[in-house]
């Protein structure tokens, strides 16, 4: 976009004004995003004593050590498992709800409002709702006798307390909290698909399922890619659900210690070591960078953006 010809001298004419306008954003982004990232990369190769002082450089090999440590590997596996539950389930349920509500029916607005409703819950609100649904002694489900006899494990040991089910239970709460977001996005995407496509396909004898796979899914491509990336990123940043529902436990396996909880959590083994915390945080950044690159290049290439 060329904006009228200017002489060389005037190239700098608007420079001071531009700097002035960029300054507020630039200051915040430099001080609270770029600087801390650089500083974290530096801190990540340091080792401090138990009080967080006396930090000494260990060389950048410490990143390899952190990555290969049992604790980080556990957090990585937990996070990947968590993503493998929440991302596909969130995507399928979100699309399912949106398609279900994408019909002209009297009162459909009410159902759309219901399906969007979880967008209003913060991570703390959603997690506490699920905590008191699933808590084994005072939780709602554990105190319903018929449910209890059907699923004894809800009371003993409790789904959040059993290492076999804890991560799935946390994931369910997270999927529920994210449903509204996916539903709204996919619904907006569906409304962008021209009606004629469906009518033409129907005239040609394509049934509902065929129309879904041949029209809806390809036309939703960009929306689905966006949702996929957001859900994956969120899964790798999961902190609040773990903090409120399980505190990273059940111990001693740390069955729900995600990478973010590993960095910041109260029960994390590296809680008081700024160097290791920074190192793990940088590794989280790198993992997310690689994931986004894979998703954009691998899948993005096949997504149809229309004209």
């Amino acid at each position, binding site marked *: 976009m060329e904006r009228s010809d200017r002489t060389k001298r005037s190239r700098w004419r608007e420079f001071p004004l531009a700097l002035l*306008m960029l300054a*507020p954003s630039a200051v915040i982004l430099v001080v609270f995003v770029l600087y801390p990232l650089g500083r974290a990369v530096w801190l990540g190769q340091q080792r401090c004593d138990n009080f967080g002082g006396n930090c000494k450089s260990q060389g950048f090999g410490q990143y390899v050590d952190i990555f290969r440590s049992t604790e980080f590997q556990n957090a990585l596996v937990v996070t990947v498992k968590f993503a493998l539950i929440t991302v596909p389930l969130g995507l399928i349920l979100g699309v399912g709800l949106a398609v*279900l509500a994408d019909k002209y029916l009297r009162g459909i607005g009410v159902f759309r409002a219901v399906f969007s409703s979880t967008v209003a819950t913060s*991570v703390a609100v959603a997690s506490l709702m699920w905590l008191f649904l699933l808590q084994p002694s005072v939780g709602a489900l554990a105190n319903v006798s018929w449910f209890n006899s059907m699923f004894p494990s809800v009371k003993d040991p409790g789904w959040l307390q059993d290492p076999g089910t804890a991560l799935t239970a946390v994931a369910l709460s997270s999927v529920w909290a994210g449903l509204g977001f996916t539903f709204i996005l996919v619904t907006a995407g569906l409304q962008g698909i021209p009606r004629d496509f469906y009518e033409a396909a129907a005239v040609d004898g394509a049934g509902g399922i065929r129309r879904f796979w041949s029209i809806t899914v390809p036309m939703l491509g960009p929306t689905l890619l966006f949702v996929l990336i957001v859900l994956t990123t969120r899964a790798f940043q999961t902190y609040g659900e773990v903090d409120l529902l399980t505190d990273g436990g059940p111990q001693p396996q740390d069955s729900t210690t995600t990478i973010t909880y590993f960095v910041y959590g109260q029960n994390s083994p590296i809680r008081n070591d700024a160097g290791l915390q920074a190192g793990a*945080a940088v590794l989280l950044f790198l993992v*997310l960078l690689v994931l986004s690159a894979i998703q954009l290049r691998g899948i993005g290439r096949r997504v149809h*953006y229309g004209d």
Partner: protein
Amino acid sequence: MATELPAGVQGAVDTALASLDELPESTDRGRGRGRDFDAPAGWRRVGRYLLLALVSFVVLFPIYTTVIAAFKPSDAFFDHPLLPGPFTFDVIVDAWTAGNLGRYLFNSLVVATIVTVFQVVSAVLAAYAFAFLRFPGRNVFFVVFIATLLVPLEATLVVNFDTVDGLGWSNSYIGLAVPFLATAFGVFLMRQVFLTLPLDLRDAAAIDGVGHFGFLWYVAVPLVRPTLGALALFGFLGAWNQYLWPNLIINETEMNTVQSGLRVLSKSNLDQPNLVMAGTLVAAIPVVIVLLVFQRQLVRGLTAGAVKG
């Protein structure tokens, strides 16, 4: 800056505003004006309603159990946790007092308001520079801005804690707000929408002697008001819902936001489910109200990230 717009510019603005107002509707394909060709009829229609009702029940279930627990006396909670009991408002009042919720809601409101105002102002200014000014290094600056989008919050808070604590801003509103006062997302969003404005508009204004700030305030900002609304809503919700940062930077209970306050309430009252449920409900209501009022901005903001090809 506080000058009236020349009549010619004002006319152009009005025309452009009118055409923008038609945009949101034209993306919908005439829903609601008539029945879909494949709208379910007869028994299939009944089946569809049943399915919708069943799914609604499942989606609303955690909210339902929260609401009935919040309005039930403490001693009645364990009898039938899934059924409404005798109605009482006492638990809500108890939660309000025990959880210090009035103070926490106020803190959240202050912080979210500060963040919203600064995010909108900083984004509009930077976006204007990127969209309407020509200066050396513009593209380099823009790439650096956008690159910050790749850095997750979780990777920076370790150091941000030291920075904010070092400035003496722990346990303060400014400390809670400062890392979020500007976002690259906001700059990117506003730049995209500024680029859709016709350049003739700026040229016409320049000819009429309107400077950059006058043009920004009287022409550009009114034209992009819908996107601005979406950005403001997102800034507000993002700050309001922030969980990790307040937990790191706040250790005086009085300064908790409603999110970190809920954590305190739940960790110290694990044996009183309906008290915590009542607190959760109270904490959720402001966002529900905000979203009901600003539904359109929500959808616009959410889709802004997705539809960009």
